[in-house]
């Protein structure tokens, strides 16, 4: 099995999809000659030419808006937003245009575009380059949202996103680009919209996604050493949301924690906790617990940055207290 990084897997997904479908174009800042701020699109311009790998001026709203127009006229564009923190710049084109065009126009046309971006902490990038803004996307009807945590999912979810009929926001995690895994890309793949159960345990269900999966798995190992066995669910896509998998395991186990890097209040963890509480109340031994980002901006100081988001220790401690 080849060893691939998360970045390599993303690049390969783009290259394989572009080779198959001549209507796929990449458009964004530095995606061509520079190769992407994090190197994901490295050399794709050599392989596919400047008409399909399009370097743009620094104009995020019109990058996303151009992708909308291209998607409506027969292309399958991949717009790249260098940091998810720039989402606010593009929110009109994303939330008022891409997300609503199918609906507003009575189903006449869809907007099959992918908005690739990356977010999260881990590089001391400061308050405007480190956020986890997936809740903005999840709160907007009409958008799909994928957040791969593993190298295999970086490949497969991006490949799948490039066949979807509706706009997909695809948020990578900046701290995962150099992560390596041995992956068999020919192994069977879960269908789009299906969560993955990464670990089975009888005491507690932990629901998470993106980089926090790795912290949760680390915490689960610590907990196992103390005799606590956790089931870990990696959502993979937040829209579609595979609540059936969550329900099945929470009803069996009776305890649930939700872990997210995004700010706690009104975030993804809040939505998941509310749903679990409503739908699985009769099966719960105690309230659903959220472990999420602090309600503060992210600092550039490594210590403050790390302290602003959940880590393995907090996750393990919290689980231990839930079972005490």
């Amino acid at each position: 099995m080849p060893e691939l990084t998360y970045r390599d897997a993303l690049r390969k997904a783009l290259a394989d999809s572009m080779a198959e479908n001549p209507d796929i174009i990449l458009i964004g800042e530095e995606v061509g000659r520079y190769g992407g701020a994090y190197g994901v699109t490295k050399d794709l311009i050599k392989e596919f030419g400047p008409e399909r790998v399009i370097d743009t001026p620094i104009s995020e709203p019109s990058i996303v808006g151009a992708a909308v127009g291209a998607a409506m006229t027969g292309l399958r564009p991949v717009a790249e937003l260098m940091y998810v923190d720039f989402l606010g710049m593009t929110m009109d084109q994303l939330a008022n245009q891409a997300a609503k065009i199918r609906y507003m126009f009575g189903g006449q046309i869809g907007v099959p575009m992918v908005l690739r971006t990356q977010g999260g902490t881990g590089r001391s990038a400061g308050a405007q380059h480190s956020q986890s803004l997936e809740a903005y996307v999840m709160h907007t009807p009409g958008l799909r949202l994928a957040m791969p945590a593993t190298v295999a999912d970086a490949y497969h979810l991006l490949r799948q996103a490039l066949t979807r009929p509706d706009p997909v926001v695809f948020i990578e995690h900046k701290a995962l680009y150099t992560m390596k895994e041995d992956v068999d890309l020919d192994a069977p793949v879960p269908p789009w919209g299906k969560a993955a159960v990464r670990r089975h345990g009888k005491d507690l269900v932990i629901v998470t996604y993106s980089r926090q999966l790795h912290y949760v798995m680390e915490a689960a190992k610590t907990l196992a050493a103390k005799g606590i066995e956790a089931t870990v669910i990696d959502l993979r896509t937040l829209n579609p949301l595979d609540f059936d998998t969550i329900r099945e395991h929470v009803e069996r186990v009776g305890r649930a924690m939700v872990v997210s890097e995004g700010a706690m209040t009104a975030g993804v963890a809040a939505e998941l906790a509310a749903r679990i509480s409503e739908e699985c109340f009769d099966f719960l031994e105690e309230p659903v617990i959220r472990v999420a980002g602090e309600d503060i901006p992210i600092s550039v100081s490594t210590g403050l940055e790390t302290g602003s988001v959940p880590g393995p220790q907090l996750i393990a401690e919290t689980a231990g207290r839930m079972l005490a």
Partner: protein
Amino acid sequence: MSKKSNSDLLGLYRTMRRVRTFEERVGELFVRGQTAGSMLHLSIGEESAAVGITAAMKPQDTFTTHHRGHGIFLARGADPNRMMAEIGGKEAGYCHGKGGSMHIADMSLGHLGANAIVGGGIPAVVGAGLAARHKRNNAVSVAFFGDGATGQGVLYESMNMAALWGLPVVFACINNQYGMGTRIDQATANTNLHERAIAFGLNGESVDGLDVEEVAEAARRVVDGARAGKPGFLAVSCYRFYGHARKDKSPYRDAGEEETGRQRDPVAFTRARLIERGLTPEADLDTLDAEIGAEMDATIDFTIAQKEPPLASMFRDVFDPEEPEPEPVRTRLNRVLATE
């Protein structure tokens, strides 16, 4: 100016009259309480822009419009019954009652959609221009917007991209002098709007919207230039005869200004020219106007007779029809609160 044939000018007049009369009937539908809401923005006084520019477009061309776009869509060949039904929020409308006046669209006519965000539809034509180049289909994409949108950053981003990449794109600014209640000279220091486009490297022209033949000529230059690889910008100067939306009585401008402005009437101007040049007898124009009046009267009767969209249709078309619809709140509540 080049000599136009009788049928050319009469054709332009006919389409302008249809736009004018349609808009008047929209006003009537509103007064009769049959429109979905009051956010109706009439293009009366701006007909030459819609008609002159669409006359320069080809069938494969695409376009986006703004919130004051009824005239453009009608001039492009829309069915006035389906338009009026959409404005009435009826199932038989172009968007089955989900879009309305400000979100009307028809892919078969290349109408990529009207937009209720000022400037919101502009960047889409850059993407449509990229697609046209990629597919080599010789299509031009035109963004229609008002002078108000010249305050939006996306216009300049998009003009820059179009010029940089030599895309078959046209930016069509219908300068009706007002962004809601703010006159153009209260919103910008340099009101020669086309100069901005020239600065970005586009073909840029301004034209007086009183004369539809001049608009059509200028549009032909700009659209043909875009098709040949040099994007363009055309500002058409006209006067918004009525308020911003149906309930706006324009208290921010005085009666004298409105009276003068309404004398710049492109429909009346063209009608007088047809008579003056001896191209069409006045009696024939009277007959034509009456026919158009009857056609547009019928859109009101059609709309009133149509059904409201069924309630369950609200969950349709959030996503592709092959995908599950979002679960209705009531269904979820019944599921969550169900007793054993």
